[in-house]
């Protein structure tokens, strides 16, 4: 199994897609609850597996293009088939996943093996009939959106109009129409005329869930810009600029690096957005630009270790974050296979671990605690014994229920709220 690089539920939550470093997409489907098998409710089984991207070689630059899937985004379902967008560093693909559970039999011109029948054997005309067959799930690439990005694509986001989507790389954001592959519109370009003056890059971008003209993009300097596509064709001028003033007392040489935003997500209701930087998660009210309305510390105990984390490059890890369906709880990952959830109303936070030892099927997860003071209590874990190679970068929350998907390197964990 390869390292999982992205996790995403579809709009109903019945399907869960994962992309990995090897360019493969694996889709899981939730078992339908039936009267005869109520226990299976909530279990996800493999539905489809396909190779989305292959490694490519850019001959002009003598560079290999990684096949790693950076992001997957589902399209809302409009017919029996499912559609998703998957992207690597350079190319976005639209995949159609469809089921086939019937087969036509009784063709006139060919027999069951597919061989052409001898003309003299055809003595009568018959109508082919549909016979059931074992379910087959097919994935086929329907569109390939290529050659629009010089830099590495970090985000894709489907618009609420369900006809367009954006793709963002380090310096540019492009707008596409799902039906058109040979053209895309550049809507943001922060590349300086002189690359030597480059000090800021785009780290994530997303469309507003309800307003099809609004999108946001975050930067490596910890700022978020909200843009309105109605104001101009090229949205280099932002409509809103979100930045929290720096706390001068906590300033260090690492301040900028840890302020770099690794993920930005709108709330489902479209009133808030959440940003993840190295040590914290912040919730912003779209109407207030000068500071976030809520700040949650994910692993503040790492603040004193920033120098070591810089040395071993962990400080550059890009953690994602997600909202639950009702926007009441947010979740993000940490090290040692820990992930954290924060309840916004009660300010209750929980640390859980995604590992084989602590996750027996159907067993309740035990909350974990990191010891920050000298005296370690039983079951607590000290900061120095955290495993920084076990990082949870990708998590996803079911859009309606309390089911979460947590990717721990090359394992996928699914947790569900216990129902009696």
């Amino acid at each position, binding site marked *: 199994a390869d390292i999982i690089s992205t996790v995403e539920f579809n709009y109903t939550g019945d399907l869960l897609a994962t992309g990995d470093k090897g360019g493969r997409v694996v889709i899981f489907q939730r078992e339908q609850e039936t009267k005869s098998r109520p226990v299976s409710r909530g279990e996800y089984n493999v539905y489809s597996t396909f190779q989305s991207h292959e490694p490519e070689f850019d001959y002009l630059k003598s560079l290999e293009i990684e096949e790693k899937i950076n992001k997957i985004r589902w399209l809302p379902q409009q017919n029996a088939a499912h559609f998703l967008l998957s992207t690597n560093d350079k190319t976005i693909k639209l995949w159609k996943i469809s089921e086939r559970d019937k087969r036509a039999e009784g063709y006139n011109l060919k027999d069951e093996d597919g061989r052409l029948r001898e003309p003299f054997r055809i003595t009568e005309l018959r109508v082919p009939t549909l016979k059931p067959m074992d379910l087959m799930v097919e994935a086929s690439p329907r569109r390939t959106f290529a050659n629009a990005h010089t830099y*590495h694509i970090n985000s894709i986001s489907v618009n609420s109009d369900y006809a367009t989507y954006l793709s963002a790389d380090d310096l540019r954001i492009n707008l596409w129409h799902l039906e058109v592959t040979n053209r895309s519109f550049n809507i943001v370009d922060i590349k300086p005329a002189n690359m030597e003056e480059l000090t800021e890059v785009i780290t994530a971008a997303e469309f507003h869930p309800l307003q099809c003209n609004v999108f946001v993009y975050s930067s490596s300097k910890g700022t978020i810009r909200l843009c309105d596509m109605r104001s101009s064709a090229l949205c280099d001028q932002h409509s809103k600029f979100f930045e929290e003033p720096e706390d001068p007392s906590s300033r260090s*040489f690492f301040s900028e*690096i840890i302020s770099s935003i690794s993920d930005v997500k709108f709330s489902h209701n479209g009133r808030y957005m959440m940003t993840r930087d190295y040590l914290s998660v912040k919730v912003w009210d779209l109407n207030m630009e000068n500071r976030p309305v809520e700040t949650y510390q994910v692993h503040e105990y790492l603040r004193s270790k920033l*120098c070591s984390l*810089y*040395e*071993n490059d962990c400080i550059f890890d890009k953690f994602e974050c997600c909202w639950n369906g009702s926007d009441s709880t947010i979740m993000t990952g940490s090290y040692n296979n820990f992930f954290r959830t924060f309840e916004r109303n009660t300010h209750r936070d929980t640390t859980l671990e995604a590992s084989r030892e602590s996750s027996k099927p159907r067993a309740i997860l035990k909350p974990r605690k990191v010891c920050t003071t000298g005296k370690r209590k039983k079951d607590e874990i000290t900061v120095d014994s955290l495993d920084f190679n076990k990082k949870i970068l990708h998590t996803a929350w079911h859009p309606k229920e309390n089911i979460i998907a947590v990717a721990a390197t090359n394992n996928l964990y699914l947790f569900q709220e216990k129902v009696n």
Partner: protein
Amino acid sequence: MFVRGLKRKCFDGEEDIEGTLAGIKAIPSYNLQRQSLLDMSLVKLQLCHMLVEPNLCRSVLIANTVRQIQEEMTQDGTWQMINTQSTGQASLDRLVSTDILCRSSRDQAEGKHVPAYGTFNKDFESDQAQDSSETMSASSVQAPRNLQSNVWEMENPQENKGNFQKSLDQIFETLENKSPNSVEDLFSEVDNSYYDLDTMLTGMMSNTKMGHCDNLETFSTPTNTASNSNCKSDLNDLDHIVEILVES
């Protein structure tokens, strides 16, 4: 953390310095920390540069950190101070910091910095004469070397900063233009007599992890190559470099 352990090993054998620094062993001076951070960042940028396709976000963040340190050093006069300080003290500061340079995150666990330190010491003495004449002429990515040569030549600090900034800029340029053409440009200044593959490869192997190791531009300073063979080489980097050499 890592700085603490480092200092103890580094200063074995340096009697007089050990005494002075024994008091601050537990808390390395701010300047020292800052310097080691600067050197570490420069090494990261160099290694970034050698990758097939560097992560732009990471490179930008590291470069910004380097600029920040440089600005602060300029502001509190440390930049100039480096030039006027006595060579003994300064050289040890350099050695401490470049010791960190020798250790990549891979080497960290293995603790290979002691031999590296020893060789580096010798290297400095032999380089002394070379550096002062070479720094001004070499215009390629040589930021760490410039910093060190500041110790020896008490020249115009402004110029050195200029070189430093220029090297940073060049890092970005080459990050941007990762095409065979730009590699050829890099090579255009190289003295042709050093196209002897063996010398180059030895040079590359020893230079990939050293503090003042640059890119392929180190061909112009052969004296560096022989003495720094203790640092481990990254075979992947080496393969890539050989590929480029073959192509050009």
